């Protein structure tokens, strides 16, 4: 365990040092996942579905704010849908506009969260989303999670029935418009998953904000189990076809992801918990203090021992020694200034934004 904690500490140091590059690389990887999945699943427009387009969009979006990636993904989806059939593009545009109007106008900085949900669904681990959002976010994260689920199922439906949706004449267009709108809004599997994600996320959040020991673990387990149960109940009552194996695997993976997140963001030592009680004029206070596990990464210093130096070698001149002393002092000063600037500006917390 202590080795893992040392690794975590070293990871934090590496992140603090190269955060600009790491964030851009992660954005690029997310872009590759998002645009790659869109192009491989619904790549109806040949020009936009090439690998060059995927790479180019990912590279451009890596250097722009995350909201741009969400907008680019939306436009790419609409282009592919338009290439398939105009009514489908129209209905999808309406759905995306509704999402924008009712939620993303108020929190444009969190719009990129909607991208994570379809990616998790595509990788067959949808319950990671309620667990991760519940552990690291707030109840408001329910909205991007639910919208992401809807987007995934709309894409999934178009992919699975592309040939049927391809428009013919004017009457065919009207029919496909109605059929697509009906299928998009009355997909029972979609609503079951929206419910599972919503309830799972709220449950994880409710448990992890309690002061019980191992709240994060209990929350992850409770959220995963709730999501599995809702999926299974939906299977039985609404006659949808969710695979039980996939549900259980998704739940177990979500729990494992919860454990990893707990290790990374909330490592505390419950065995040293202290309970205090004190009072003032108006209240009695019952305080539970759980210490954080802090392990400092060992500093590796390389000492050069020059064995070949002859015994009678002349001693280092005094002036040189003084110069080195001055250098050390300046270096120490620089390090202290950098540290205090980092602390004051909160550069370690930039990932929140």
């Amino acid at each position, binding site marked *: 365990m202590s080795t893992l904690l040392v690794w975590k500490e070293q990871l934090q140091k590496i992140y603090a040092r190269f955060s600009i590059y790491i964030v851009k690389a992660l954005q690029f990887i997310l872009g590759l996942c998002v645009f790659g999945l869109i192009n491989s699943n619904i790549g109806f427009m040949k020009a936009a579905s090439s690998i060059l387009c995927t790479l180019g969009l990912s590279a451009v979006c890596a250097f722009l704010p995350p909201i741009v990636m969400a907008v680019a993904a939306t436009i790419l989806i609409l282009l592919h849908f338009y290439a398939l059939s105009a009514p489908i593009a129209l*209905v999808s545009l*309406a*759905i995306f*506009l*509704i999402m924008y*109007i*009712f939620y993303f*106008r*108020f929190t444009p900085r969190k719009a990129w969260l909607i991208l994570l949900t379809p990616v998790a669904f595509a990788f067959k681990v949808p319950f990671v989303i309620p667990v991760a959002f519940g552990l690291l976010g707030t109840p408001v994260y329910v909205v991007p999670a639910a919208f992401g689920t809807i987007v995934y199922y709309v894409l999934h439906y178009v992919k699975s029935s592309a040939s049927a949706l391809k428009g013919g004449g004017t009457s065919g267009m009207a029919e496909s*418009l*109605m059929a697509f*709108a*009906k299928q*998009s*809004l*009355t997909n029972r599997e979609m609503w079951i998953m929206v419910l599972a994600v919503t309830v799972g996320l709220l449950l994880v959040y409710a448990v992890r904000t309690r002061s019980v020991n191992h709240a994060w673990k209990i929350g992850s387990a409770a959220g995963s189990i709730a999501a599995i149960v809702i999926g299974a109940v939906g299977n039985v009552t609404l006659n949808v076809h969710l695979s039980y194996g996939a549900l259980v695997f998704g739940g177990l993976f979500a729990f494992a992801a919860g454990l990893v997140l707990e290790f990374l963001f909330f490592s505390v030592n419950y065995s040293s918990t202290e309970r205090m009680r004190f009072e003032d004029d108006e209240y009695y206070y019952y305080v539970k203090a759980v210490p954080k596990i802090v392990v400092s990464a060992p500093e590796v210093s390389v000492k050069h021992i020059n064995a070949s130096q002859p015994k009678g070698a002349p001693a280092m001149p005094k002036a040189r020694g003084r110069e080195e002393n001055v250098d050390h002092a300046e270096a120490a000063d620089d390090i202290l*200034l950098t540290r*205090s*600037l980092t602390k*004051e*500006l909160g550069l370690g917390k930039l990932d929140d934004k």
Partner: protein
Amino acid sequence: MLDKNRIRLMAKMAKYEKSQAAEDLKISSYYKKDYASLNTLITAIWVTVGYALLAGLIIISNIDALMKNLTIAKFIIVVSIAVGIYIVLLVVYCVYAGSFYKSKHNRAKQRVKRYYRSLSRLGKMYVKEKK
């Protein structure tokens, strides 16, 4: 000679200028009430558009069921339910938007105030150094 305090102050101000200063200065050029009212009005218009889109989608997807045995009474009931939901949605969103934009204005104003204070501190530091 480098002044550490000045470097700290300038770095803090540069970070703010890069991220939020432009938007904050624009927001704080309005009075709070004006800013909140304007944005609430814009929200109301957007909610109307969004509701119309949502209603349109629902009507399109359920057009068979709606048109089946359509009578004037049924039509009036459906329309009044739709209007009722719209009014409730509009009121909820307008109330939320009002408080949201008021607090946004407050936060922006505070940040701008802090920025101006830092600017004057920086100016004093330069004057002191010149002396």
